């Protein structure tokens, strides 16, 4: 499903090279729920944006559903992102000028789906997250938890091959966070593949497999629920 092999991301200036990811390898199989943890600056967000095709990498290989993304143009990457990946952000990233319905339709528009199909998918996604009655509301009219549910609905409406969640409960109080986490676990139980970046060890522990990042490299803590996780240790000598 998602296979990164010896992937590096280097930020270069005239005098210094900074590795955000170094020789990074990870294989996420279909149906897995993987959490990615690590301290600030460990490369979690860089991993997520590269996985989400929002950023390019410096070297290595990344196969998304068997497609070598390095060879794709921006338009092809955008189409692949639209078709395969659903995002759930810490800051929700709902568009304030659009209603919840309008927000959910955005990726469907870029997929050039017809009006009836868009409406059907929007309705189903909103029902799935329990916001069917809030379709015509604007994001500012919803609570944080509801906004995050709407963001998840936006991701679900596209039937993505996997969900990328970046600190999905980071802006929520504990009650709302539990609700959102519960929803993600339900989606996983229904077969969704989820990769969640978080610094919250308690949340990370609820994933099927936890991957710990330090200085752009993986410290895989192993499979928690069965041995499905592809364990890859790429520790450099001395780290």
């Amino acid at each position: 499903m998602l296979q990164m092999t010896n992937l590096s991301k280097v930020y270069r200036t005239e005098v210094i090279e900074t590795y955000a990811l170094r020789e990074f390898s990870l294989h996420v199989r279909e149906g897995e729920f993987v959490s990615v943890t690590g301290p600030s600056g460990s490369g979690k967000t860089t991993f997520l944006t590269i996985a989400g095709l929002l950023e390019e990498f410096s070297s290595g290989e990344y196969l998304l559903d068997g497609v070598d993304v390095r060879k794709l143009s921006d338009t092809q990457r955008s189409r692949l992102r639209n078709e395969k990946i659903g995002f759930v952000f810490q800051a929700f990233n709902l568009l304030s000028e659009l209603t919840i319905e309008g927000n959910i339709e955005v990726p469907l528009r870029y997929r050039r789906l017809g009006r009836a199909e868009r409406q059907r998918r929007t309705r189903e996604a909103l029902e799935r997250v329990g916001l069917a009655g809030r379709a015509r509301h604007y994001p500012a009219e919803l609570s944080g938890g509801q906004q995050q549910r709407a963001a998840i609905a936006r991701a679900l409406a596209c039937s993505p091959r996997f969900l990328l969640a970046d600190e999905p409960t980071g802006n929520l109080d504990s009650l709302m966070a539990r609700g959102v986490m519960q929803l993600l676990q339900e989606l996983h139980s229904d077969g969704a593949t989820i990769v969640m970046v978080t610094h919250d060890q308690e949340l990370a522990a609820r994933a099927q497999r936890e991957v710990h990042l330090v200085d752009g490299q993986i410290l895989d803590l192993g499979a928690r629920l069965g041995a499905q996780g592809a364990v890859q240790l790429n520790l450099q000598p001395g780290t």
Partner: protein
Amino acid sequence: MSIVGYYLDLALRSLRRNAVLAALTVVAVAVGIGASMTVFTLFRALSNDPIPEKSSQLFTLLIDNWGPRAAIPLDLRLAVSYADATALLQARRGLRQSESYAINVTVTPPDPAASPISASGHAVSADFFQMFDAPFRSGRPWTGTEDTSGAPVAVLSAQLADRLFPGQNAVGREVIFNEQSWRVIGVLRPWDPQPHFYDLIFANDDVFVPFESALAHNYNTLMAACNTPPPGPSAQAKKASDCLWVNFWVELPTAASVRSYSQFLENYTAEQRRLGRSYGPPPAYYLYDVRGWLTRQHVIPDEVRLATFVAFGFLVVCLLNAISLLLAKFTARVGSLSVHRALGASRLDVFAQCLLETALVGAAGGLLGLAAMLFGLKIERLMLGETLAPLARLDSGMVAITLCVAIASTIACGAYPSWRASRVPPALHLKAQ
């Protein structure tokens, strides 16, 4: 809704969301467009081809009948002598040809209670109307025979005919010019070629009478340049002089006919020299087509050229301001655009969205600019002299040009901010949203 319709919807929402910035951008475009197009309206009217279908086939000419002791250089003269014009007319070497000179007459209206009217016009040859495509509303032009015989016939403008004979057909009626009776044989439809190429000095035409009839009725010339004093002030006296007061136009429809006519002029001036007349050395003539004549006469004054240049410079300054505002606007939208990128929009999608938003700003700026133009043209008419003021008017062509320039220039200016917006790395802004 198609994807373009969706982009339009997003653009309108974005403009509403940041209304102050959008309004400032629209005003920047409108001010630039209003100022530049106000001046350009005049420039365009002056550089207009007044008779586009035939402008390369109609020629006027100057002949150096004064020789080396000329009071005015050949290239500064405006007309030819009666002797030369008549000789060329009688030679009939062109498809059509016409002499003309400007006249003023006092018209006595048929209604005895009405006051006399002062009217301007031209005394012209029979070919004039067909040569210049003057459109007849009723009646006909006069014939060559009526011209040479000095028949008292006239063609009126629609405006004068309607004023003298309201609600009636003027053709066949008698009119009194300078207390002499003339018979109306034709009425033109409204016709006002701009610039008034066949006489750039006297541009009002309410009355047309046959050339020889005007002379027979002693209608004086309004302007003449003489190398030696004429024997008297009347038009008849000027006929025998070397004074230049007749505009001569000839229609030469093919390149071969132009070459042939040039050769004819060579031969004609050479013959005059052989006869001992003080014609200049060859080539003692200039032949101008309509465009060439307008250029030679500096129909576009240097002041108007300069003002147009300055006005477009001002437009550039306004558009540079618009670029800054658009950059600020798209920078403010970068978070929202990053979300669109994350949800599947390509760089091209983002670029198209921003460019469409820019086009909307351009269209709004163009419409507001048109309103500014109406005001600007009003001021321009007050400032310009009587000859140029009528040219400062807004027609449908100018409306279309203004809107096109506004939208095209704004899109051109918006291309860079749009491109910048499309290149912003979305990852940077999704976290901070």
